[in-house]
């Protein structure tokens, strides 16, 4: 970014004013993903899972730098510096970036509640959609009626984007996304921006139950055109009961379990709260929710440490 600013200042007399203005505005926009980020309080465990999922959709450089921000509201986003910025910088200044900056934002109150953050996979789905134009392709590949009003098109497009993001999330956290939707937007009907919650849940359940579903087919057709992986279950929900019953972290066995642990943890939480027995018998519900989230975090952290350890050993042996 500093290089862009320096080059714009240096070439201010050569560059057309429109280019200077556009680059300046884009640097301002980009700065919010950097300056608004927290580095000492990052929920590394949650970001790790998203980063891992992102690698399924990015097969070649550039690499992504994921920053984090906390929101004082019940909302999430996963968005980054627009691709056009990098493109414009290279075309007009010859500056090539090796990395892309994306920012994950989540409610401050949920920073240590990974089970409430599984919806970030939904946001990652929107990001992948925007990078590849999936929801627009879906609409164009279906029967495209040129007489459709702009208003109806916008609604159809928004609904496609939401269905895609839900299905994307279901690839990683399975039914957890449907449970979260049912809990956060219960009985919500169709709106201009979002399909009815029940319709969304139904599409996710069809996908997870391997039932034919037109929306799933539509997403997959668009993904195939763009050379991307098709929707598939990329998680494995581990059996965590024997560990969590004894208030011990679970030892994750694979990257599929990294994602699946959020589903397993959510199920464990739902089953346990209101029915606390054994070592949990004297724990309050509030403490149980916090402790189960802690166990999920610790399980993820242990896996991350083991992976880093293994990576270091492999690097040393290869050196």
């Amino acid at each position, binding site marked *: 970014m500093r290089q862009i600013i320096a080059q714009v200042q240096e070439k201010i007399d050569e560059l*057309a*004013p*429109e*280019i200077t203005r*556009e680059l300046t505005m*884009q640097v301002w*926009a980009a700065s919010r993903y950097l300056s608004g980020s927290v580095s000492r309080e990052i929920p590394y465990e949650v970001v790790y899972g998203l980063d891992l999922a992102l690698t399924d959709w990015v097969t070649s450089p550039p690499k992504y730098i994921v920053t984090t921000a906390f929101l004082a509201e019940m*909302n*999430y*986003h996963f*968005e980054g510096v*627009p*691709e*056009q*910025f990098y*493109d*414009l910088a290279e*075309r*007009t200044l010859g500056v090539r970036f090796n990395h892309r900056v994306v920012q994950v934002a989540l409610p401050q109150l949920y920073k240590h509640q990974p089970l409430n953050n599984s*919806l970030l996979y*939904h*946001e990652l789905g*929107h990001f992948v*959609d*925007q*990078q*590849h*134009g999936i*929801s*627009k*392709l879906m*609409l*164009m*590949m*279906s*029967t*495209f009626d*040129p007489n*459709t009003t*702009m208003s109806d*098109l*916008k609604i159809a*497009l*928004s609904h496609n*984007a939401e269905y895609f993001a839900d299905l994307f999330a279901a690839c990683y956290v399975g039914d957890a996304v449907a449970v979260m939707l049912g809990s*956060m*937007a219960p009985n919500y009907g169709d709106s201009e*921006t979002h399909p009815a919650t029940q319709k969304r849940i139904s599409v996710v359940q069809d996908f997870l139950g391997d039932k034919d579903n037109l929306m799933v087919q539509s997403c997959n057709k668009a993904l195939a*055109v*763009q*050379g991307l992986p098709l929707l598939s279950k990329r998680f494995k929900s581990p059996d965590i009961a024997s560990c969590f019953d004894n208030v011990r972290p679970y030892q994750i066995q694979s990257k599929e379990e990294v994602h699946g642990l959020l589903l397993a943890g959510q199920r464990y939480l739902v089953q346990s709260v209101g029915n606390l027995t054994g070592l949990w018998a004297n724990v309050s519900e509030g403490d149980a929710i916090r402790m189960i989230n802690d166990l999920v975090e610790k399980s993820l952290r242990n896996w991350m440490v083991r992976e880093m350890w293994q990576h270091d050993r492999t690097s040393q042996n290869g050196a």
Partner: protein
Amino acid sequence: MLTARSTASSPLDIIRLTLEMLSQGHTVPASLSEHFDSVLSSAKKLTQDPSNPPNRTPVEAIHLAFELLSRQALRQELADINGLRDLDKNRASRLLAEMELSPVHP
């Protein structure tokens, strides 16, 4: 997004920027001119048979094709345009105004 949210940037920002430069009478660098021609060509190909898009269509072309399919006035304005060389200052202004009318997000 779980809730509605607007975004300041558009996937067609570079196309808009190129048209703006032309409409202001500024020289468009070759790198932007070539980019404009390439996106326009891919978008037009896509609009010919949207149900059967070419593989790995650039994302900007998808967005422009969508604009073309959904807005007749824009489609007509670009019908005989095959590249930036076919545009003059006035047509670039008209196109820009047409594109600014109702961008469809996301």
